[in-house]
């Protein structure tokens, strides 16, 4: 195994760096942040014919309404990534808080919350999301709150397990015997020790949520037009495929690249963490 890996490791650090996914993720995030300055045209500006082939003025051609595909992709990065980041933050805020408290308090409260979450986990996320969106409609706040809350149940499981493994350590017992309060113990003893595994989980969770939002948008239940987002762009341009045009594959590739990139970064991070 190591004999086959060794040469490629020596062949230059930049190659390994590129393969780590970090530059890809950084590029997409940078594009998302600076979208209005990088994009060659306006987000919903009509600049050409329907599905014009790639040319010098439109590097990736135009979309189903004659908008610049590259511009839509750039603004799409901004909309999709922002939404996924907000939902991830919400999921972590709730999931980690509840998970930590359940782990630290223990007893019947922990048992009750865990049992309830277990039942929620047995409903597929997509089905739950469809139910909620059918009633509340799909405005952005509803979308973020729904996805954030649903994913919080997944975060809870991880956060509780991580906290449980720390709660039983001596320094936590020592702090409690010193008479420190519950919140102090959670913030000063458990949280710092849980950050490393939770960081990896956050990145993975982000990629799940990002994929999930893309799927919802693809189903027409996510971000609404004319705002550009990668999932909706796949749906809007789906018909092009029947004319042999790759239009829906551009946004789909963007989605795949970001997910693969984030997963690669997490893999590398976990491998580095595992090393003594």
């Amino acid at each position: 195994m190591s004999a086959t890996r060794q040469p490629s490791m020596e062949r230059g650090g930049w190659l390994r760096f590129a393969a780590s996914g970090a530059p890809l993720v950084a590029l997409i995030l940078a594009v998302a942040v600076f979208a209005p300055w990088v994009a060659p045209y306006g987000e919903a500006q009509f600049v050409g014919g329907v599905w014009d082939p790639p040319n010098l003025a439109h590097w990736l051609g135009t979309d189903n309404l004659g908008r610049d595909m590259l511009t839509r992709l750039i603004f799409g990065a901004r909309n999709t990534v922002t939404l996924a980041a907000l939902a991830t933050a919400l999921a972590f805020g709730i999931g980690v808080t509840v998970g930590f408290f359940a782990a630290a308090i223990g007893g019947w409260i922990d048992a009750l919350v865990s049992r309830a979450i277990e039942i929620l986990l047995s409903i597929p996320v997509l089905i739950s999301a469809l139910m909620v969106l059918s009633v509340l409609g799909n405005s952005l706040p509803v979308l973020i709150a729904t996805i954030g809350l649903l994913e919080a149940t997944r975060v809870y499981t991880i956060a509780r397990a991580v906290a449980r493994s720390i709660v039983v350590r001596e320094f936590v017992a020592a702090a409690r015997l010193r008479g420190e309060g519950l919140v102090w113990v959670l913030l000063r003893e458990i949280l710092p020790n849980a950050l490393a595994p939770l960081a990896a989980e956050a990145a993975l969770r982000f990629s799940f949520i990002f994929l999930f939002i893309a799927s919802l948008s693809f189903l027409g239940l996510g971000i609404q037009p004319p705002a550009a987002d990668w999932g909706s762009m796949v749906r809007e341009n789906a018909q092009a495929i029947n004319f042999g045009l790759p239009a829906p594959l551009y946004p789909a590739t963007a989605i795949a690249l970001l997910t693969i990139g984030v997963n690669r970064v997490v893999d590398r991070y976990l491998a580095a963490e595992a090393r003594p």
Partner: protein
Amino acid sequence: MTRLIAARVGMGLLTLLVISALLFFATDLLPGDVAAALLGPQATPEALATIRASLHLGDPAALRYVHWLIGVVHGDFGRSIATGRSVVTVLLPRFANTLALAVLAALVSVPLALGLGLATAMRPGSRLDRLVSTLCLVTISVPEFFVGYLLILLFSVQLGWLPSLAVLNGGMSFAQRLGAVTLPVITLVLVVLAHMLRMTRAALLGCLAAPYIETALLKGLRRRTVVLRHALPNAAAPIIAVIALNLGYLVVGVVVVEVVFVYPGAGQLMVDAVGKRDLPLVQACGLAFAATYVLLNLIADIVAILVNPRLRAS
């Protein structure tokens, strides 16, 4: 063991009951007047009143839940608000289509995952192993619609071998139907294969690290025999669990695939119903999907209990 299984079945039933309550109250108690949402801004007060009366919106929610649940148990999910047709007659044929798609995908993906998992675990680090693990990473990371559209572009647009739309109608022969669903089935297989394969490989490799495997190998048994006869039976429980979990995912993940290929299944039906806010239909679809998912998990747990000798004895 019987008690263990009985407890698991009880838990499954309880989960279903809670899910049904969640589905009902989630679509029923959330803010927003259902009647107003149905009729839109031009609704007259009389029309609103009629809708509210027909949906028993004046009754307490708990009472409506009990009525709804009794109906559900008797196979009555009410009437679709958008079309006025009985929900069951709309849902059943569509759900049968979805199940057919999922079963076909399972028939292909499960043997493939087991075979490739065995082959890669037999020789870890080999060329095949590295190729398969790279492909797994890719198929896990890309969305279903990416796989779907790529296959359409390749097989139906460029090569012209298969239809891009999986539209079914009564006049089609069995072979025509099979041709129509080939691309959606391949898409589903690619989506679920990676997880099953990786878990099979990981479980087998975990067992292969045990001392008794070393004993068997040192005894001079062939690696094939050791993997198949000594490691596989012990790795069966986690493998079965993952397979059942992924079959559950098949039934749910099918939603996106159905939309890509315009396949007349329950997933497409549910997405349309959500768009039209057709609550009885959404509830019925949600319950059908959730129940299938819970049932598959239940079966996974029971089979895992049955194949584990330590649990079987107790």
